[in-house]
């Protein structure tokens, strides 16, 4: 059957027949890099137009509808505009850090692509500590934001950056704990193992209520980690104009913008992998016939369907809720989410030991 893994395997075979092993690996790396950059750009375009359409429909508007069919090329036009805009560097700014920050944001987002399984047997790097790798790398995001905020030499930027620092560091905890609960159930940190363990049903169904609680905590925590409303205190445009990227313009701003959307995609992909089975089709226990029918839907469709559903949920949050205040934000984490996820982790562990899950 035509699939991503088939394509990648045939490319690999053709390359190893034609070139020597070293060259093969180099060429494969280049191909992977280009593919990631392409996916990066493509995701940015798709997610921006998606967000604009979602927000428009929720706000009883039409949204962009002039460029291309139904306005679908609007984000392409926006990108073109941002490309030709002048990228200003303020006089008092730390020039090196100021210009470095957007690239760090982008590099972090790109690194996070590595362990994600986009389809069956289609993964850049199936390392044995995949989930740990994701939480480790995603916490690097705060460095770029702090760097941008500090280097801009702007008080609004600095405040946005400091807020974001406190926020990301705190919410990492409950995100990590809810990820751990799935790791406990699976017994492995490897992404492919986690997906395989859901062959007879997704964890959100198999893990009873504790898995649902972990899922909800995870969604809230990653919304905060990616600085999306209602936790967009780093930007908070009614308080801090644009927060940490107030001074950025042109392509440097676009990189932050892109990194935000790609981060949203990645955390949703992780959420889909952990709780909704990644590329694994919807299987119910040992109903062989039903499972077989579900297998006919390509695995990449399953993966992107689940991921985009989660992205939609996060967008839905953004266009419904008001923003929290900084102390309430930290209260929510330390008084509610963290205790809940700790108790929840205990429950999950008990459940895993007693084999209460399906």
């Amino acid at each position, binding site marked *: 059957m035509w699939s991503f893994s088939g394509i990648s395997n045939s490319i690999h075979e053709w390359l190893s027949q034609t070139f020597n092993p070293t060259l093969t690996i180099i060429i494969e790396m280049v191909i992977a890099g280009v593919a990631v950059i392409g996916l990066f750009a493509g995701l940015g375009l798709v997610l921006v137009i998606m967000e604009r359409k979602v927000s428009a*429909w929720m706000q009883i508007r*039409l949204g962009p*509808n002039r460029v291309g069919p139904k306005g679908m090329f609007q984000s392409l036009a926006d990108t073109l505009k941002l490309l030709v805009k002048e990228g200003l560097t303020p006089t008092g700014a730390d020039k090196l850090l100021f210009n470095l920050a957007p690239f760090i944001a982008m590099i972090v987002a790109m690194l996070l692509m590595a362990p994600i399984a986009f389809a069956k047997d289609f993964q850049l790097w199936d390392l044995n500590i995949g989930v740990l790798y994701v939480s480790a790398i995603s916490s690097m995001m705060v460095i770029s934001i702090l760097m941008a905020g500090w280097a801009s030499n702007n008080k609004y930027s600095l405040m946005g950056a400091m807020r974001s620092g406190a926020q990301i560091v705190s919410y990492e905890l409950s995100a990590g704990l809810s990820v751990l609960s799935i790791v406990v159930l699976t017994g492995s940190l490897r992404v492919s193992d986690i997906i395989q363990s859901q062959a007879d049903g997704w964890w959100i169904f198999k893990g009873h209520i504790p898995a649902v609680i972990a899922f909800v905590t995870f969604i809230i925590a990653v919304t905060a980690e990616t600085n999306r409303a209602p936790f967009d205190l780093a930007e908070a445009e009614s308080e801090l104009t644009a927060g940490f990227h107030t001074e950025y313009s042109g392509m440097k701003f676009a990189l932050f913008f892109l990194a935000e959307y790609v981060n949203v995609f990645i955390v949703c992909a992780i959420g889909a992998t952990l709780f909704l089975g990644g590329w694994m089709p919807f299987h119910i226990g040992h109903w062989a016939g039903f499972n077989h029918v579900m297998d006919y839907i390509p695995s990449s469709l399953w993966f992107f369907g689940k991921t985009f559903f989660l992205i939609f949920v996060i967008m839905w949050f953004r266009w419904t809720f008001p923003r929290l205040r900084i102390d309430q934000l930290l209260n929510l984490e330390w008084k509610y989410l963290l205790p809940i996820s700790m108790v929840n982790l205990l429950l999950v562990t008990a459940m895993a030991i007693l084999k209460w899950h399906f």
Partner: protein
Amino acid sequence: MFIVKYIKDVWNAVRSLLKGMRRTGYYFTHHKEIITQQYPDNKDTLHLPERFKGEVVMLHDENNEHLCTGCTACELACPNATIKIITKFDITPDGKKKKAIDKFVYHLELCTMCNLCIIACPTDAIKMAQTFEHSVFDRSELTKILNKPGSKIKEGVE
């Protein structure tokens, strides 16, 4: 009980959030509720109320005659010196001099559409038009002369 209150708080909070999400979700799926008007596209069907105050115009009939006697009531009523009436003296057939308008100068750039000139006019010579696209490339185009060239006052209007 502390723990009951804690759970109740969490539950009420989640419920209030879900209520809001249900509302936005409703509008997300019901596109009939969209109220946006596609402005330049609906220009042909766009209906402005007859009282809409867009711009002062002078009424001319088919014989290129207007009703303005040049009494300057509108000029006096205008708060912003938008209207300037320049008069001349026509010689009537029986040799008498008669006051008439030469130019009815209207500065659209100064006008606030307050309607005071219209209600001040004793002969209803001017009225508000329903135009609203007033942007021009040159500011001087906003200074208009309302009486058409060659127009004269209608017979019998004093």
